[in-house]
């Protein structure tokens, strides 16, 4: 589908602070760069598909290898519970060990068990859905409610999205911690959507520092600009990033997004911004 002679590339959209317009901008990118795969790596709260026409998704499970115990072999020695660094194994007197949701699926307890009484079974922690929204391939990760660790689901979602072999937009989780890092790890370029408020700035600065440490090319899209006329310039690592677009504060865009209408259909400046972002990403992702 893609032009010959060009490798597909991936651009991740991050923000630090939630609600700055990550998902709206991801949808805008997806809608102005076909053929693309639109990957929703915000697996705790996946919302990208809602802005792309809410296509029907076919799903597959994401699971984690978690321990199970052969009660015949288990001598209740307690090695497994002492080995686990995550508090996921309880062993108590004469009872067989019990495993909980804190398990990272590392396999250390299985390695440590002197009786070879532990083995691994697959436990579902989330799923990945795939669908087609008018030519855009939507790949959405979804963490099961109650599961503490989104990282395995994020990793699998991005992997499956990239396997489509198309240019890929990755809508990332908020924050700057391990979920965000997992979402951008394989991206060739990163767009940081922020707003010129003290909150937007503080949070985006943390993300910018992480991206610099990871060696990811990054650029800013400033949403809701013009809230304050006297807004000071960006400082710190943020101040070193190119600004690709400034999008006006717009109630119409927010109203549209509330109803599932992508901003590109409401405000032409989003279309232009998405175009500028693709161009920048193609340039730096060489």
């Amino acid at each position, binding site marked *: 589908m893609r032009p010959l002679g060009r490798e597909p590339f991936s651009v991740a959209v991050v*923000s*630090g*602070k*939630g*609600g*700055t317009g990550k*998902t709206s901008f991801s949808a805008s990118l997806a809608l102005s760069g076909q053929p693309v795969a639109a990957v929703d790596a915000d697996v*705790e*709260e996946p*919302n990208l598909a*809602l802005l792309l026409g809410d296509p029907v998704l076919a799903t597959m499970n994401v699971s984690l*290898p978690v321990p199970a115990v052969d009660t015949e072999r288990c001598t209740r020695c307690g090695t497994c519970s002492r*080995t686990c*660094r*995550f508090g996921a194994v309880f062993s108590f007197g004469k009872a067989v060990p019990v495993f909980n949701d804190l398990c*990272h*699926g*590392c*396999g*250390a307890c299985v*390695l*440590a068990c002197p009786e070879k009484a532990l083995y691994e079974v697959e436990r579902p922690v989330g799923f990945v859905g795939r669908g087609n929204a008018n030519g855009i391939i939507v790949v959405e990760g979804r*963490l099961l*409610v*109650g*599961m*503490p*660790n*989104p990282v395995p689901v994020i990793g699998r979602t991005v992997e499956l999205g990239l396997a489509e072999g198309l240019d890929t937009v990755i809508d990332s*989780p*908020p*924050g*700057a*911690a*391990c*979920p*965000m*890092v997992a979402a951008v790890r394989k991206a060739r370029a990163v767009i940081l959507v922020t707003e*010129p*408020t*003290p*909150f937007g700035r*503080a*949070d985006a600065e*943390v*993300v910018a*520092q*992480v991206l610099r*440490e*990871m060696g990811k090319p990054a650029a800013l899209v400033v949403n809701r600009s013009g*809230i*304050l006329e006297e807004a000071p310039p960006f400082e710190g690592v943020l101040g070193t990033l190119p600004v690709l677009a400034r999008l006006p*504060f717009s*109630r119409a865009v*927010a*109203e549209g*997004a*509330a*109803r*599932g209408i992508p901003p590109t259909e409401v405000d032409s400046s989003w279309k232009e911004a998405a175009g500028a972002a693709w161009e920048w990403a193609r340039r730096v992702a060489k």
Partner: protein
Amino acid sequence: MSLREIVVVSGKGGTGKTTLTSVLARALSGNAVLCDADVDVPDLWILLKPSVHSEEEFVGGNKAALLRPPCDDCGLCVPVCRFGALSSENGRVILDRSRCEGCGACTLLCPRGAFSLSPAVQGRIYGSETDFGPFWHARLVPGGENSGRLVQLLREKARASALEQGKSWILVDGPPGIACPAISAMTGCSIALAVTEPSKSGLHDLKRLGELAKRFRVPMAVVLNRSDLSAEGARAVRQACREAGWPLVAEIPFLVGVVEDLARARIPEAIPPETVRRVLEGIDGLVVRR
């Protein structure tokens, strides 16, 4: 009077958690201990303007280190690491500490004992004073492990302050999402106050949050923020609240004054005191009924 702990959550980010927490903090002034459980990108300090009186390191989990010698690059460890922290390039074993989750599987396996595991500083914890009461907050190192444990520690400290100083409320600004930090912030609270907006995504995320609250047996009440953004969306949120039995304790319209105050790092004046009172009365009733 017993101690009541409110956690303000949202699922979706940017719905107004920190805004609501700040106006509640002002309303409860002198009676509450405040806590920011968004340790990844904390923002409540921007509005509360704390003066920090204590600071300590947060040691969260371990990281592996590879010692060479005794490592002889045998590569046995590479397939054992489930987190992709170990790889082999040109016959040389490489450890990427940023991917290490500190499980210790490599230390168990290595025949030469080349790995060591040591605690890693993952953030800082701050004890502060504000105009409205004591304030506990923290900051994870950039890109740090998303630590439920850090949230748990903050809540323990807030609780200790509240008991020591005879405060009747703990007010926690929660993290977005539904994973470990959100679970840590919600577990055992008197009530989760969910801030949502009348959008498809707001509603979608609210429902997931409701499932989480139910699973951890925390009663949940809802505040609908920017309620006039979509009449259709607002109806859908009201209906979802009715069906699930979540009391909708207040609706706050979109107020330009709030946006401007926040942009100037000020606690919004535009949210009417009656609204704040309604929220507090609404939750109070729920906590007592519990």
